């Protein structure tokens, strides 16, 4: 076991919380039962790490095995770091028939072809997702295992979830992904968050969503009926209406967990409705953040804190599946390639 592997192992162990350590290590399968039992999890972490290192030396484990441990931990706890979502576009005919084995081989081959020093590790998760761990190096340096990139892709879906990718390595990843999935291109969806499953649910519509309709529907779940005949609510109808508005905008049931929503405003000063003389656009950023943004927004509407009906700016988070928007003037002049007009 070389120094860098030791270093990586130490870093991984440091990152895993003590209470999860035992569970994660038991899934690793590179220690014999006897060895595993000899580890004392009540010990100080650095001490435990020393013992673990010596066991690894005993078993002649290498970097490969160490990264495996990291993957196990990361797959078990995906809500770490920020995940960005990309969408594959222009599928070719073969796109629907790609199976995991060919994808794996082709992705690895493509990536290795593009960049010489790179270490790729793949693992198929239970829910049919392929987890890819990439440690990047460049032409002269060994792969850096300390800051790997994680990519999650569900086969036969156009979405790719990426975490820890630098701008430098972005083109390489894109160029490897596109041919191996048989798609024509890859674009940013402008959706990011910490909770991977929430992002997946939001994009693949795996939650109870609402569809915009012209006519208000009857709600199954009405406002809570007073529990006692002697209690009457004066604003019952208003409450009902608000709940309906909220449900229409954000759907019923539990919403996916997003942390932020960013609105970038680019507009021009106007004087009496006419564009001002200033050429420079006025820029502003509004950022909403919460531990569960969609639920908070929904609650704002249903509790009457925000005025109804809900502005399309907020409701389009769920409807369009993105949380980064650029708002521009309708007229010509200021344009933004990435942002969509609302």
């Amino acid at each position, binding site marked *: 076991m070389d120094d860098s592997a030791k270093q990586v192992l130490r870093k991984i162990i440091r990152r895993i919380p003590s209470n999860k350590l035992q569970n994660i290590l038991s899934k690793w399968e590179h220690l014999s039962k006897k060895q595993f039992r000899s580890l004392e999890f009540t010990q100080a972490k650095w001490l435990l790490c020393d013992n673990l290192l010596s066991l690894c030396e005993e078993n002649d484990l290498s970097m490969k095995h160490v990264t495996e441990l990291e993957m196990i931990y990361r797959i078990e706890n995906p809500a770490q770091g920020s995940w960005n979502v990309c969408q594959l576009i222009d599928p070719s005919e073969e796109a629907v028939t790609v199976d995991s084995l060919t994808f794996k081989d082709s992705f690895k081959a493509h990536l290795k072809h593009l960049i010489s020093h790179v270490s790729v590790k793949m693992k198929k998760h239970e829910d049919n997702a392929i987890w890819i761990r990439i440690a990047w190096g460049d032409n002269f340096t060994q792969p850096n295992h300390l800051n790997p990139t994680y990519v999650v892709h569900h086969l036969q879906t156009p979405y790719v979830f990426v975490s820890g990718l630098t701008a430098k390595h972005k083109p390489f990843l894109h160029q490897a992904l596109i041919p191996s999935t048989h798609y024509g291109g890859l674009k940013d969806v402008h959706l990011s968050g910490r909770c991977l499953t929430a992002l997946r649910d939001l994009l693949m519509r795996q939650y109870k969503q609402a569809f915009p309709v012209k006519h208000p529907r009857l709600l199954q779940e009405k406002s809570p009926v007073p*529990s006692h005949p*002697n*209690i*009457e*609510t*004066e*604003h019952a109808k208003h409450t009902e209406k608000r709940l309906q508005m909220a449900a229409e905008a954000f759907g019923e049931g539990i919403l996916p967990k997003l942390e932020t929503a960013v609105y970038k405003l680019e507009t021009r000063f106007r004087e009496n409705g006419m564009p001002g003389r200033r050429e420079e656009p006025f820029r502003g950023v509004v950022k909403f953040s919460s531990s569960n943004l969609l639920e908070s927004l929904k609650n704002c509407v249903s*509790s*009457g804190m925000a005025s109804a009906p809900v502005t399309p700016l907020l409701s389009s988070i769920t409807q369009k599946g993105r949380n980064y928007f650029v708002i521009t003037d309708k007229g010509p002049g200021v344009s933004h390639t990435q942002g969509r007009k609302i």
Partner: protein
Amino acid sequence: MSLKPFNKLPELNTANVLLVENEERFQKKLADAIVLLENNVNVIVRLARSLPLPLENAESRPRIDLVVFIVHLNSEQSLLSAETSLKHLDSGYFLGKVCFLVTGARCGTLPYERLTSLKKMAATLNSPLLMTEDKTAEGVNTAAQRVLAVLRVAAGLVPMATGLYLSSLTRCTVPNDPDWQNQD
């Protein structure tokens, strides 16, 4: 249209209380506690977010004996909403048929001025200001008891006592003690 205290006839052995709370956080709990506590009198609790009350209920709404404004000190909106609601109340209510319920007065993080301005408001309206602990079940129960005590008098169910009489005894006062004013 403002709410009037005497434009309808009272019903026998009945007391009506209106709980006004913009947040609708605490009124439900309080209403449950109130109706459970009182057995001798038919107490009817009406919940509202703010005044004025919707017109469509005006016919069915009985005479309101007591209006309780619930103010959460941790939100400015709560205080402002109560202030605007007060304008839609007939002046007859201020003769002992209004009381304020305040939560979070012991919380140190809120601006002290908010409590002071609320106290001033209650003092100018000659209305009692009841402090409550809305977080604990015991606190909710106590609040319900106290609202009931005021309600019984305001609805004329206690012989020899009227709401005006009680509110002249319990109305909020703004202390002019310098000790108390500068807290820190």
